[in-house]
C-alpha cells in the first residue's frame, strides 16, 4: 500500500487549494499523471489536424463552384448553346413535316383531267359522295395497285435470281464434268 502524500488531519484535508500549478494539484489529490512533454506534442498534433481539415474543406468549396465540370463563366454560354441546338432541332423537324405534307397533299390532289371535268358536272347535293368515291379510287386503290406491283417485282426478282442460280449451277456442273 502506497504511503499517502496528503495530510491525515481530517479537518484540513481540502484546506490546501489550488496554488498555480494545475498539474501538481491534480497529481496530489487525484493521482492523475500525464506523459512527459505531452502538451508540446498535443499542440503540434492539434495544429496539424486543423491544417488538414482546412485542406479538405477548401477543395470541397472549390468543387461546389463548378457546374457540369465547368467554371461558372462558361455555364451561361453552354446553357445558351444547348437551348439554341434544341430549338434548331425542333424547328427543322417541323419544317420537314410541312414539306412532306405539302408534297403529299400535292400528290393527293394530282387527279386526271377527266375527273376534274366530271366533278364540274356533278350535282351539288351529290358532290360529297363523288369526292369520297374519287378519293377512294384515286388514292386507296392506286396505293394498293402500286403495292401489288412492288410485290410482283420482288417475286420476279427472286424467281429470276433462282433461275440464274440454277443456270449457274448447270453451267458449273457441265464445266466440272467437261474438265
Amino acid at each position, binding site marked *: 500500500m502506497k504511503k499517502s502524500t496528503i495530510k491525515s488531519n481530517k479537518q484540513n484535508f481540502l484546506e490546501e487549494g489550488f496554488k498555480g500549478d494545475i498539474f501538481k494539484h491534480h497529481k496530489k489529490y487525484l493521482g492523475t*499523471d500525464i506523459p512527459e512533454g505531452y502538451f508540446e506534442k498535443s*499542440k503540434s498534433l492539434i495544429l496539424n489536424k486543423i491544417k488538414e481539415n482546412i485542406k479538405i474543406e477548401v477543395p470541397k468549396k472549390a468543387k461546389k463552384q463548378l457546374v457540369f465540370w465547368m467554371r461558372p463563366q462558361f455555364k451561361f454560354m453552354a446553357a445558351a448553346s444547348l437551348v439554341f441546338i434544341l430549338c434548331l432541332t425542333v424547328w427543322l423537324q417541323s419544317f420537314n413535316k410541312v414539306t412532306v405534307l405539302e408534297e403529299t397533299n400535292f400528290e393527293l390532289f394530282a387527279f386526271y383531267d377527266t375527273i376534274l371535268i366530271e366533278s364540274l358536272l356533278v350535282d351539288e347535293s351529290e358532290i360529297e359522295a363523288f369526292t369520297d368515291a374519287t378519293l377512294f379510287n384515286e388514292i386507296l386503290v392506286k396505293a394498293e395497285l402500286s403495292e401489288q406491283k412492288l410485290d410482283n417485282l420482288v417475286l420476279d426478282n427472286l424467281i429470276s435470281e433462282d433461275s440464274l442460280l440454277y443456270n449457274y449451277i448447270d453451267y458449273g456442273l457441265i464445266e466440272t464434268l467437261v474438265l
Partner: protein
Amino acid sequence: MDKDATLIKKLKNVTLKDTAFSELLDTYQERLYWHIRKIVSTHENADDVLQNTFIRIYKNIQQFKSKSSLHTWMYRIAYNESLRFLENNNKKRYDDIDTISESHLEVLFEDEYFDGDEIQKKLTNIIARFTEKQQRVFQMKYFDDLSFRKISEILEVSESTLKSTYYTTVKIIEEKIFL
C-alpha cells in the same frame, strides 16, 4: 480581460488567426485538458476530446459574440465535447447518469496515467458517488480554480445554488475521507 479581447480580435483576423490560435493553445490547453480529464477519466480519452475541442474552437471562433468570456466559452465547448464523448462511448444518454458505474471507476484506476494511492482512490470514489452536477461544481471550483461566476456561466446554474452545492460536497468529503 483586455488580453482576451486582443486575442479574440486576432483570432477573427484571417491573416493573424493561426498565430493567435497557437497563443490560445499555450494559454488554455492545459487547463482545458484537466477539465476534460476529470469528466472522461483516462488520459487517452482526454487527449481525443481535447483535440476535438480545439478543432471546434478554431472552426467556430468567427461566431463567438463575446457574450461570455473566451475562457467560459471554451470551457463550455470542452464540457459539451466531453459529454458527447461519454454518450458515444457508453452508448447511452449521459443526462440519465447520476452516478458513475463501478466499471467506470475500474477503467480510471487501471489507466496507465493514474498513479493514485489509497487516499487518492478514496477521494476519487467519493467524488464519483456525487450527482453529475455536484461532481462538476466541486471539480471546477476545487481543481480548476474557477470562480462561482464562471462556473455559473458554464453550467447555467445560479451562483447561490453553486455555492450551496460546493459546500455540501466539501462537507461530505471531509466526513468520509478518513472513514
